[in-house]
C-alpha cells in the first residue's frame, strides 16, 4: 500500500489531534494517581530535614542494643547471612575508636572507650552516594531522607565506594533464604542491589517514628532538624554532640551525644 502526500497529511493531522487530546486525558488520570501516590497521608509525620540524636549512655545492656537492631532488621527483611563477606546490615554496633576514626582521643573516660555506638546511614545533607549514582537509584527526598529504588539499582556499587560511613550493603547473593521471619509489610530485596537504612520512611508515612527510635527507650531521638522546637534540636542544645567525619563535608544528620561519666 502506498500513501500519497495528501493522505499522509490527513492521517498525520488526525493522529496529532487524537494525540493532543488523548495525552491530555491520560495526563489528567496519571496526575491524580501520581499525586495520590506521593502526597503524604493525613497522619504522616513530615519534616524539612529529618535527623537523629543518639545518646548511647542511655543504652545500658547488650540486650538493649540487640533489641534496637532487631527492631530494624526484622521489619525490613534484612537477612542474617552469617558471614562477614556477604553481610547485610542497616544498623549495627561499633566501638568508639572505630566509630570516630581520626577523632577518637587516646585518653577518654572508660565509659566511652568501651561503649558501643550505633551506626547507620547518616542521611547526609550533601550525600556523596547520591552524587555518584549513575541511575538516580539512590536519591535525596525533600525531607532529607536518602532513599533507594531497589528496582532501578544496577548494582555498580559506586555508592558503596563513595559513602564515607560504610553504611551501604550489597546483596552479594539472594538474601531471601536468610530472612528469618519475612514480613509482608516491607519488600524483600533481590541479589545484586545495594540497600541501607531508610530512616523508616515507610513508617513516617503512617505516622510512626523509626523502629529503632521506638525500641530505644528514649536513647534515640528523632525529629526535624530545621524546627527549633523539635526533640532533636532540644537534644542538640542540651548536649555536646559529635557527627562522624564532619570534615568530608557530607553534613550527616545523625548526631552522637558524647556524655562521658555524667551520663554513665
Amino acid at each position: 500500500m502506498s500513501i500519497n502526500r495528501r493522505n499522509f497529511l490527513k492521517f498525520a493531522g488526525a493522529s496529532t489531534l487524537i494525540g493532543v487530546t488523548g495525552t491530555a486525558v491520560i495526563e489528567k488520570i496519571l496526575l491524580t494517581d501520581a499525586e495520590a501516590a506521593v502526597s503524604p497521608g493525613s497522619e504522616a509525620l513530615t519534616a524539612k530535614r529529618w535527623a537523629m540524636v543518639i545518646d548511647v549512655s542511655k543504652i545500658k545492656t547488650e540486650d538493649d542494643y540487640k533489641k534496637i537492631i532487631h527492631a530494624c532488621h526484622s521489619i525490613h527483611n534484612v537477612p542474617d547471612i552469617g558471614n562477614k563477606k556477604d553481610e547485610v546490615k542497616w544498623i549495627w554496633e561499633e566501638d568508639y575508636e572505630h566509630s570516630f576514626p581520626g577523632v577518637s582521643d587516646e585518653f577518654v573516660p572508660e565509659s566511652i572507650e568501651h561503649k558501643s555506638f550505633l551506626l547507620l546511614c547518616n542521611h547526609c545533607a550533601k550525600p556523596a552516594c547520591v552524587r555518584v549514582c549513575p541511575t538516580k537509584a539512590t536519591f535525596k527526598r525533600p525531607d532529607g531522607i536518602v532513599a533507594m529504588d531497589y528496582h532501578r539499582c544496577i548494582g555498580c556499587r559506586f555508592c558503596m565506594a563513595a559513602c564515607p560511613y560504610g553504611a551501604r550493603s550489597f546483596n552479594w547473593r539472594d538474601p531471601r533464604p536468610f530472612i528469618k521471619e519475612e514480613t509482608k509489610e516491607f519488600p524483600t530485596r533481590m541479589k545484586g542491589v545495594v540497600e541501607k537504612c531508610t530512616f523508616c520512611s515507610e513508617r513516617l508515612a503512617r505516622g510512626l517514628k523509626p523502629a529503632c527510635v521506638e525500641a530505644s527507650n528514649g536513647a534515640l531521638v528523632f525529629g526535624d532538624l530545621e524546627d527549633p522546637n523539635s526533640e532533636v534540636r532540644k537534644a542538640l542544645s542540651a548536649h555536646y554532640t559529635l557527627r562522624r567525619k564532619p570534615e568530608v563535608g557530607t553534613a550527616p544528620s545523625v548526631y552522637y551525644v558524647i556524655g562521658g561519666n555524667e551520663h554513665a
Partner: protein
Amino acid sequence: MLDKALTGSKGYWIWIFSLLAVIGVGVLSYLHQFDYGLGVTGMSRDVSWGFYISQFTFLVGVAASAVMLIIPYYLHDYKKFGKIVILGEFLAIAAVTMCILFIFVDLGQPMRVMNVILHPTPNSILFWDATVLNGYLFINLIVGWTTLTADRKGVPPPNWVKPFIYLSIPWAVSIHTVTAFLYAGLPGRHFWLTAVMAARFLASAFASGPSLLILLCLIVRKVSKFDPGKEAIQTLGKIVTYAMFANVFLLGLEFFTAFYSQIPGHMHSFVYLYAGLDGYSKLVPLMWISSILAIISLVMLVNPNIRRKENLLATACVMIFISLWIDKGFGLVVGGFVPNMFERVTEYWPSLPETLITLGVWSIGFLILTVLYKIAIAVRERTASWPELH
C-alpha cells in the same frame, strides 16, 4: 576485509581456538556468577570493587595510549609511525571492548545496564565514563577501519575522517581522566583522593600501553612479513621510558605527601600495600614485585645501549607491563578499600570464578586484537612494496 581473518597458518588457528577455549570457560563461570550473584567473587561489604574494576581501570590506560602514536604521526608528521598507527588504534578497540565488558561483568543487575541511558545522570562520573568509553570505541572503529580500507586501495584516507582523528586525541585523554575522576572525587577514601590521580593514570597509561605495543610489534614482525620498523619501535621505547619516569615521579609525590605530612588516613593504604597493616599483608609481595620491576626496567630503558637491543627492550617492556598491571590492575583499587571506613582491615583476593571470568574477558580482548591485527597485517603485507602514501 574481515575475510582476511579467516585464512591463517596452523599456529594462527591454534591460538584462536585456545582463546575461544578460555572464553568458553569464562562464559560458563559468568553464567554461574549470573545465577548466584557477585558473591562468587572475593569481593565483600568492605572491599566492594575488586579484580573487574581494576582490570577496567588498567585497560582504559592501554586504550588511551593509542594517542602516543596519533600525536606524533598526525600532529608532528612523524612518518615512521605511519605503518603502525593502525596497530595502536586496533589495540585501543580491543582494550575499550574489554573495559566495557569488565564493567558489565561487575554489575549486580546486568540486565538493567540500560538504566544508565534511560535515566542519564550527569552528576555521576560513571555516566560520563560510559559516554566517553563508547565514544572512544566508536571513534577508533571509524578511524581504524577507514584508514585501513584506504590503505588497501592505495589511496590516502578520505578528508572527512580527519576531524575524527584529531578528535581522538583529546578523547583519549578524556577517557583516562574521567576514569581517574571515578576515584579522585570520593570523600573519605584518602588513597584515591588525590589531585595527581588523573596525571598519574595518564603517565602509567603511556608507559603500559606503548610497552604492550612494542611487544605486539615484535610479535607481528616474527609471525608475518610486515615489519613495523626498527626506528618506530625505538621511538616507542623512548615514549615508554619518559612516561614511566613520569609515573614513578608522581607515585613518589604521593609517598611524600602521605609520609611527610604523617596524616594517618593518607598513610594507611600505602602502609597496607607495601608493609602490611594490623598484621594483614596479602598484597605486600605483589607491590614489591611491582616496585622492583619498575626500577630494573627503568635502569634498563634509560640506558640507550640496552634500549637499542630489541631483546632487552622487550624484556624491559614485559617488566613494565607487569609492574603497572600490579600497581593499577590490582593494588590501586584494592588499596583504596583497605583499611575500610572504620579503619579496620578486610583483605581481598580474587576467587577462582572471578579469575576465570577475568581471563575470559582478556581472551575476548585478545581475540578481537588478533582478528583486527590479522586484517591489518594482511593489508600491510600486500602494500609493503608500495611507496609511502602519506
